[in-house]
């Protein structure tokens, strides 16, 4: 893959040129956290952001969108929410998340709503630095080799830019004078040092390879009931997860006529009605059963189908769950490891 250099000062001029005919999405501040949003002033772009509150899946499949408009003539496909976009500042773990969704949405039946949105979005990745909640090195998703058009590694004074696709190459050709084709030995050494330091910055690890068997062996372990007692069934973990993709479909009829629309919106397997069928039979009435489904699906079942877990170590569930049920604490509990005082706090505050 071709790698070139971009001076820091040249980033905004470059983004300006390429975003003329598309919406530019990038991480920006929201309170003391970050979100992906449409950028109209480059000064809003946060180059050193940690994880955004919601993962980039919201850009491809918004929390709610129209699949069809309906009238007396029947159903008419609606793709009006899909526009040409450039997504800048997406971290390696989130690109891995998109690759997982790509696999899923192309398995068996193709999902045109996801795939059309994906086709209309250019991916400009950006390197990141782990914080205490990140465990992407354990899932081997802290680095990325595919799934982007361009990838920017931030080396303080300049970026190294990986050109990952023909479309990425086209972007560079819009303003080639901003880039430097020649890398010096010093540039390369700077990159090697950066990589070594970054690797060291990941603290702790989770043995994901051991988890599928442990989930099987501990299927009836009381730990699930304990977690179920604490779980609020709020669905936040699924909303913030970059690979959670369950949805519900609802018809909405406008007042006074036959016109309306078919809407698709995010759903969560941790919610009580998730597995309920017409007539009231609910196959997962217990919170512990629904939590077990979430963790079994991500850390065991997905591996048997796609060869890797559907967790990318972004840490969103870690920072989001109000009662600390997340891949890190559940993973460690399954592995029989003391999870940073989790069970201590858990026993004190939740299971009195």
């Amino acid at each position, binding site marked *: 893959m071709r790698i070139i250099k971009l001076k820091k000062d040249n980033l905004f001029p470059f983004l300006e040129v390429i975003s003329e005919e598309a919406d530019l999405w990038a991480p920006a501040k929201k309170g003391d956290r970050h979100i992906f949003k449409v950028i109209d002033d480059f000064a809003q772009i946060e180059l050193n952001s940690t994880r955004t509150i919601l993962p980039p899946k919201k850009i491809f499949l918004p929390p709610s969108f129209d699949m*069809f408009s*309906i009238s007396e003539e029947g159903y008419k*496909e609606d793709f009006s929410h899909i526009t040409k976009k450039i997504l800048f500042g997406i971290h390696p773990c989130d690109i891995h998340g998109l690759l997982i969704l790509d696999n899923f949405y192309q398995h*068996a039946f193709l999902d045109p709503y996801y795939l059309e949105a994906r086709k209309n979005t250019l991916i400009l990745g950006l390197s990141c630095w782990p914080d205490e909640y990140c465990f992407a090195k354990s899932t081997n998703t802290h680095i990325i080799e595919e799934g982007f058009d361009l990838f920017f590694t931030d080396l303080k004074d300049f970026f190294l830019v990986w050109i990952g696709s023909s479309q990425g190459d086209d972007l560079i050709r819009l303003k080639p004078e901003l880039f430097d084709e020649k890398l010096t030995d010093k540039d390369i050494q700077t990159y090697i040092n950066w990589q070594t330091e970054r690797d060291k910055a990941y603290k702790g690890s989770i043995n994901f390879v051991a988890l599928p068997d442990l989930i099987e062996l501990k299927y009836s372990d009381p730990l699930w009931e304990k977690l179920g007692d604490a779980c609020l069934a709020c669905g936040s973990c699924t909303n913030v997860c970059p690979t959670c993709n369950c949805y519900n479909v609802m018809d909405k009829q406008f007042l006074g006529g036959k016109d309306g629309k078919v809407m698709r919106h995010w759903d969560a397997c941790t919610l009580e009605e998730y*597995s309920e069928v*017409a007539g009231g039979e609910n196959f997962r009435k217990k919170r512990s059963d629904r939590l077990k489904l979430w963790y079994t699906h991500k850390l065991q079942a997905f591996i048997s189908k796609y060869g890797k877990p559907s967790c990318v170590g972004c840490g969103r569930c870690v920072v989001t769950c109000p009662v600390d049920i997340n891949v890190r604490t559940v993973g460690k509990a399954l592995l029989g490891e003391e999870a940073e005082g989790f069970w201590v706090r858990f026993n004190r505050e939740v299971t009195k």
Partner: protein
Amino acid sequence: MNGENKQLTHANPFTPEPARIVRTYYLTEDVKFFQVRIVDVEKALSFKYRPGQFAMISVLGAGEAPFSLSSTPSRPGLLEFCIRKAGTVTSALFRMKENDLIGFRGPYGNGFPIERMYDKDILIVVGGLGVAPLRSVLLFCLDNRDQFRRVSLLHGAKRPAEMIFREEFLSFKEREDLECHLAVDDDDTGAWTEKIGVVTTLFPLLKEIDPTNTFGLVCGPPVMYKFVIKELVNLKIPKDQILMTLERRMKCGVGKCGHCAIDYIYTCLDGPVFTYWDVIHMRELI
């Protein structure tokens, strides 16, 4: 590629196909029979499916829900459904009349492994609305009678009035190429001439079976499976020849929405027909 001039590079699997209700009538107090034809004649005639598969039916403004195909692919053209009024979509369907338009897409799911069942004995055990998918395979066996060996049917309902297709099944008793036993839990009419009791009480009436060459097919309310499977296992029918079709919340039918997920499979893609071995192997199935 913005706005209106977007062109899909592939078909949208979520788009319903217009279909017309040809005939509808009550089978029991809360179950209705629907005969449906896809409006596009070419599509109606070329529509292929397997017994045990299901389809998504939609009513404009009310939504979409999965239903077992109750007709047999050996009688092409018309598609049949037995539908119990249980929610928003079925309530809307019950209000519809003959000649009304509905949305249709399918067929979905794996269906029964018919090719494996050829030249074998077929034992069908039905409870209540479980008749919806099993009627398809029963009629298929009868239409292709020389492809199968013995065909037997054990059918249970709560009361005579709740036995779906009661007259059709009573007339089956006269057929020589089908062993048919019927039961009701409770006869409130006083006129029931068949067995009284739950469906498992019909097992002793079966003539001796050849277990290793028998496929046992089960569908009924959730509570029924445990008891019927026990009988089939006692008869020594191999675990991978005990087939059942299961209900889950199949909202999209194409393995995307997630609601019917069990372990590593989606009921709508890898089911709804499972073997008893699947049940032992994958927890949560029944």
